[in-house]
């Protein structure tokens, strides 16, 4: 390696870990690296597609390097090619390493799904939505329905939302007609319904009451939010982002605005950072209390469920006091926030937090000691630390398996560097460990809000002016209640050119089948719920023809009619 390159690496790296990663990549790829730059905590490397795999083979065993997200972007009308942005994180340094891979049409990219298992869905999604081809792996539909037209890639810039509406109509209605069952009532219940009132479909293969294997079929309803945002202005998108999730919407809008602020280097006033952090912690509080209530309900302990939600109501009132809304606050804007926290609200906030802490402590002491709750949480749904690392898992799921991964500490943002807090970690990897992580986090969140309220600085709440610039890459990451949310934004003059949203469930779901193996059927719903998953909209069922091996996806009511016809 030449001295020039060594000096460049020395200059751009943020510590020994990133230095080691860059050196290794340069030693393998050399001339295949087209550009290397750094902005803030993000080091970006433009690398030829042919060398990506070799580079990652060389670094994938690197300690604390993990796969955070991958965004594919159609830039044919800008630069005549499609680009892939692989984002890796080095926790101990809080560094993002982005591999920008320009892909000329027709060129295949080598898969990295065997090296970084979490990248499996990202590659499938890039193939599904943008037509990117990958070598060395089978490609199948992931996000789009099976009857989606071939060669129609909805995230390409030459495909508009109107085109999609014209070209594609769901075929299920005609399928029902073919089967002669027009008079159907759609019942939103899957063949297996583990009581999470969201669309999910798990095939559980059981021997007696023991689950021997599990398969997840997801992406029931793809809402096209990323595509929709491409036709919106910068400050319209936070309202759309907040509607990604009904529980942690503010996390998404904050991630988005942080990504834009990172790309355009916008200085956000301190007070706005504090307000964002306070609201983010309020969101964590109500989310964890909601989850705890649901978990206790799944275990049949409805008294705990009722009390968890009763206590949660105080948090909802607190959110309304601070933002004007119980949910979907709508206060995030690029460069700051829309709504301030008045001084006269602070005593009420403190009083509510104090009461919340007392009541939550009482609830947890009782709930966790209920014999059935304890027995069914302990030793069930085990996720080993190695698997958690291999799948690049996030949030309480990974912290329950012994890895202290938390964006608030590792890639600190907003006002978190002003406060002192612990990252709860348990090593057992079972449902109890994940529960206790969330329980501890409630106390930490209360403490964080108390500290932030005491230190709330004066000043403006929004940057006065900022200028958009085209084709700048920004990354925004927020520690949501379920784990880190990562938004990648490529800017344009009026709004985002490309916006990639990665929710924590996207990362964590892939590990659920591992957690389910060997558990009792009765504990499967709790194990699925233990990652606090977030799905969207409607259930489907599948028929597997054992003779022909064919798989058809049909509404449940069609199946029930068929069964009754067949007697």
């Amino acid at each position, binding site marked *: 390696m030449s001295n020039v390159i060594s000096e460049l690496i020395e200059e751009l790296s943020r510590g020994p870990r990133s230095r080691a990663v860059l050196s290794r990549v340069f030693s393998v790829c050399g001339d295949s690296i087209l550009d290397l730059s750094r902005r803030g905590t993000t080091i970006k490397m433009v690398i030829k597609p042919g060398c990506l795999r070799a580079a990652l083979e060389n670094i994938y065993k690197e300690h604390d390097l993990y796969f955070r997200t991958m965004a594919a972007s159609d830039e044919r009308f800008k630069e005549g090619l499609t680009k892939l942005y692989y984002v890796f994180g080095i926790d101990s340094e809080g560094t993002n390493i982005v591999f920008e891979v320009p892909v000329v049409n027709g060129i295949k990219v080598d898969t990295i799904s065997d090296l970084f298992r979490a990248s499996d869905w990202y590659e499938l999604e890039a193939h599904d939505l943008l037509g990117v081809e990958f070598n060395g792996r089978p490609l199948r539909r992931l996000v789009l329905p099976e009857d989606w037209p071939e060669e129609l890639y909805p995230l390409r810039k030459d495909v508009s939302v109107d085109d999609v509406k014209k070209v594609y109509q769901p075929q299920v209605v005609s399928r029902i007609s073919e089967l002669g069952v027009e008079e159907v009532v759609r019942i939103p219940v899957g063949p297996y319904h583990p009581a999470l009132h969201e669309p999910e479909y798990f095939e559980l293969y059981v021997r007696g009451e023991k689950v021997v294997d599990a398969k997840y079929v997801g992406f029931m309803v793809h809402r096209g939010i990323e595509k929709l945002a491409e036709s919106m202005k910068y400050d319209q998108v936070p309202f759309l982002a907040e509607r990604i999730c009904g529980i942690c919407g503010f996390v998404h809008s904050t991630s988005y605005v942080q990504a834009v602020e990172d790309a355009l280097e916008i200085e956000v006033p301190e007070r706005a950072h504090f307000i964002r952090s306070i609201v983010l912690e309020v969101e964590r509080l109500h989310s964890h209390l909601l989850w705890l209530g649901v978990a206790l309900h799944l275990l049949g*302990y409805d008294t705990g469920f009722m009390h968890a939600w009763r206590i949660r109501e105080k948090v909802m009132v607190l959110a309304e006091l601070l933002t004007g809304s119980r949910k979907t606050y709508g206060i995030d804007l690029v460069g700051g926030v829309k709504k301030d926290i008045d001084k006269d609200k602070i005593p009420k906030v403190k009083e509510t937090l104090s009461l919340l802490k007392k009541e939550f402590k009482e609830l947890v002491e009782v709930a966790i000691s209920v014999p059935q709750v304890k027995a069914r949480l302990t030793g069930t749904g085990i996720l080993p630390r190695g698997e958690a690392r291999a799948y690049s898992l996030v949030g309480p799921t990974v912290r329950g398996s012994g890895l202290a991964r938390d964006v608030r500490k590792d890639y600190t943002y907003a006002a978190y560097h002003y406060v002192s807090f612990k990252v709860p970690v348990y090593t057992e990897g079972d449902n109890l460990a994940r529960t206790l992580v969330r329980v501890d986090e409630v106390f930490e969140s209360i403490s964080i809000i108390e500290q932030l309220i005491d230190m709330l600085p004066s000043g403006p709440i929004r940057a006065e002016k900022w200028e958009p610039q085209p084709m700048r890459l920004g990354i925004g990451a927020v520690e949501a209640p379920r784990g880190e949310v990562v938004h990648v934004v490529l800017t344009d003059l009026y709004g985002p050119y490309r916006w990639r949203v990665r929710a924590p469930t996207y990362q964590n779901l892939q590990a659920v089948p591992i957690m389910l193996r060997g558990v009792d059927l009765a504990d499967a719903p709790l194990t699925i719920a233990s990652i606090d998953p977030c799905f969207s909209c409607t259930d489907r069922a599948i028929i597997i023809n054992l003779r022909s091996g064919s798989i058809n996806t049909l509404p449940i009511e069609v199946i029930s009619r068929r069964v009754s016809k067949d007697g």
Partner: protein
Amino acid sequence: MLSFLPPLLDGIERKIRAKIQSRFGPPTPLQTWYDLLKLSVKELKIPLSCESAAFLTMLSLIVALFSLYAVVYATLTLTTNIDFMVLAMFLVLVAASHSLSLAASATTSNPFALVGSYRNVLLTILNELGLIVGSFSSLILGLKLATHYSISTLVAYLLSLAILVVATYVSSGRLPFDIHEAEPELASGTLIEFSGKILAFYIYSHLLTRYVLSLLVAIALVAPLITFFSSFLLVFSVSLVFSTFSYLAYGVVATLLGRTRVDIGVKTLFTYYLLVLIVLVIFTWIGI
């Protein structure tokens, strides 16, 4: 009057449960009756492949009603000598009611109902033994205690009562032993195929069985005191009070617990019965 009581007690139990859970609960203790009435005026819908389940549910209801009358007869005829024939008939009727309910859910084609009923089979087989041993021994020893008091009889009676209380609690299908229904796990397991009138009959039959079991515990509690009562009517009245108390006490206990898993439930129950029996044997062996 007795046929009216179980849904009313269920309504009171729901109010108490709501109070413990900081909720308002149903607007009136008669709510369960209103629910049953509402269900029973809905159209009759029998799901395909569920005809036998509907028939078995009706049979289960009839048997539950008979078991109620049998236990009332047992109470009214309770003297210092027990009529084993009446008690045996009563236990057969209770077991038949359980078996018919199980058969009703096992004959549907719904996988949730099937998983639920198979879970319940394990628990029921083990528990019916506890129910037979507990009810016979507690009644015999209770009546013996009424005429010949001794420490050894009292200890044996209390141990038998402990078996009976647990056996009737498990039979009542309350938490943590409602694993066959397990709404969050199995989408209400055994109940999933029933609606309208059939569901109303199923629930009513279930509540009747619950109340019958409470009456059985009440008789076992009254037995040692039988000599204090001058008339059968008084015995019956006291039994009613005790049965109401035990019904509601079971409801309160259920509110404080979560749901067990079938393997843990069976293991816990087996260990409990075994321990009580071992204690009984040890007491007999050392001559207490």
